[in-house]
C-alpha cells in the first residue's frame, strides 16, 4: 500500500442517487421508493430490490427515528478523520422503516444510547457541494 494520505471520502452521486444529495443540499431528507410495489429503498439503488422495477420515486421523510446502534470513535480512525474525533457513528432506524448509517452530532451526542429518539440535521462538507444528513438527539 502507498503511504499517500487518503483524502476525506466525499460521496460521488450516481444517476440514481443524485436526487438524495440534491435534497440534502436543500436540507431535506428524501427516501427512495418503488412506484410499482411501494418498497422503501435505502441505500438508494438502480432497481427496486423487491421487484427489480426501474420505476422508482422519492418521498420526503420527516427525518425522525431512533438509534439502532452506535459507536464513539475515540482514537485510531482512518487517515482523513485523524484529529477530528471523537465522533459518533450510528445506525438510525427512521420511523418510516428504513435504516441508514450516519453521525450523531450536537452537545449531547456522547450521551447516546440504543433506542434514543433522533432527528435529522444537515452538515455541509467544506469545499464540496455535498451536504451530509446527520442526526441529533431529541428531548
Amino acid at each position, binding site marked *: 500500500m502507498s503511504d499517500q494520505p487518503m483524502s476525506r*471520502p*466525499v460521496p460521488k452521486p450516481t444517476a440514481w*442517487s443524485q436526487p438524495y444529495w440534491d435534497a440534502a443540499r436543500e436540507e431535506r431528507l428524501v427516501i427512495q421508493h418503488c412506484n410499482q410495489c411501494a418498497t422503501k429503498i435505502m441505500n438508494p439503488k438502480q432497481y427496486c430490490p423487491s421487484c427489480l422495477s426501474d420505476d422508482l420515486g422519492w418521498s420526503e421523510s420527516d427525518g425522525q427515528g431512533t438509534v439502532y*446502534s*452506535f459507536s464513539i470513535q475515540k482514537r*485510531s480512525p482512518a487517515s482523513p478523520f485523524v484529529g477530528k474525533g471523537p465522533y459518533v457513528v450510528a*445506525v438510525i432506524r427512521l420511523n418510516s422503516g428504513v*435504516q441508514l*448509517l450516519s453521525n450523531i452530532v450536537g452537545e449531547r451526542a456522547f450521551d447516546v444510547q440504543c433506542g434514543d429518539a433522533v432527528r435529522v440535521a444537515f452538515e455541509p462538507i467544506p469545499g464540496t457541494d455535498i451536504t451530509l444528513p446527520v442526526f441529533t438527539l431529541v428531548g
Partner: protein
Amino acid sequence: MKSTAAIVGTGEVPTGNYPNRTEAEAAVTACRQAILDAGLSPRDIEAVMPVGVVMGSRHFNTDLIFSRLCEELGMLRSVKLNAQVMAGGASGSATLKVAYALVASGAVRNVLVVHSDKFGSTTMQQGIDLFATLGISEEWEAPYGHNANTAVALITQRYMHETGTTEEELAAVAVSMRQWGALNPNAMFRKPITVEEVMRGDHVCTPLRPKTMSLWADGASAYIVARAEDARHITPTPVYVRGMASLVTHYSVSQEANLAFLAFPEVAKEAYAQAGLGPKDIHVAEFYDAYSVMPLLAMDAMNLCDGDRAGRFIAAGHTLPGGKLPMTTTGGAIAQGHTGAGVGVSLVVETARQLMDKAGDRQVKDAVNAAESGSGGTWMDSHISILSREAR
C-alpha cells in the same frame, strides 16, 4: 445431510511477523504439509482452490489464480481445476462449502484449499485505512468516518443492549483466546492475559478495547477435502462434513436487519438439522473471532452455554483449556494473529486437527463432533458448519 465429503489432511505455517518469508514460500510449505499429512502424493490432487490475497502482493495473488502452486508442487497435467474462492473472513467456511460441492458432485475426487497472505509488515495506519474501505460503502458509509472497527462496534453495542453482556465478559473472550494461544506453537501471542489487563486498554471505538481486537500477521494454512468413500482409505481419521448452513445478510452493516445476532440463529438451527445433532453433541467450538463479540453470537445461536448467556458462560471459564466447551482452540485472530481471510481457513484446519487427534497440547479429549463458524467483510454473512469423526 449425508456425509459425502471429508477433510483428510491439513497444513499450516506459524502466524506472526515474518518479513523474510514470502507469501509463495508460506503457501507452498502449507500445501506440502497438507498433502503429506493426508499421505497423498501431489499427483493425487485434482483441484487447487486458493483464497484471495488482500495485503500480499498483487503479483502473488495472480500467481495463485494462474496455477503457480500446481507447477511448484508437481501437479501439472493432473490437477483439473485451479480456481480462486474469496469470501473475506468467511473464506474458511466458504471454501469448505465449495470444495464439498465439487467432490460431492463427482466433478473432482478432492480439493486442496490454501490461504497465504502477508499483513505483518503493514503499519497500523495502513491497516486502518485499508479496513476503512473493505465492506464499507464508499457513498453511504465512508463519508461518516465509518470503518471495520466501528462496523463490529455497532454489532457489539447492539448485542450488549439486547443480551445484557458486559465489557468484562467481552474481555473474558480475549482471556480465553490468549490461554489457547499459549498452547499453540503457531500463535503470535502466547502470553496469557487477565480481564483487568484487557479493561485497562482505552477504547478505540466504544465498546471495543484494543485487546478484544486483533493484530495483523503473516500466515498460511491449507486443507484437503476428499470424497467420503475415498477418505477412509486415505486416512484412519477422516473428518466428515455433516452440516453447512449459511446466509448473506447485508453488504452495508447499516442495512443489517438483526444487528445483534446477524443470521447465526437461523443457520445454527439449519446446521443442527443437517447434521442430525444437537447442542449436547458438540465437543469443541472453533468459532471465528477477529473481535471478541463474534464467537458469542455463534455460542448463543448454537445454544452451547447450558441455557446461560454466552458472555457469562465464557467469563465463568467454561471455554478455557480443560473447560466443558473448549472454544477457538487456536486462540483465533486475537491470539494466533489476523491473517486476513486466513483466520477462517485456519479454524477449519484446527477443527480437522482436533477431530483427527492431531492438536498437540490443545487436544480436546474424546472430541467427536465440532462446530465451526465464519463471517466475512463487515459481517456480511453468517456460516456454521458441523464436522464429525463419524459419517452420517
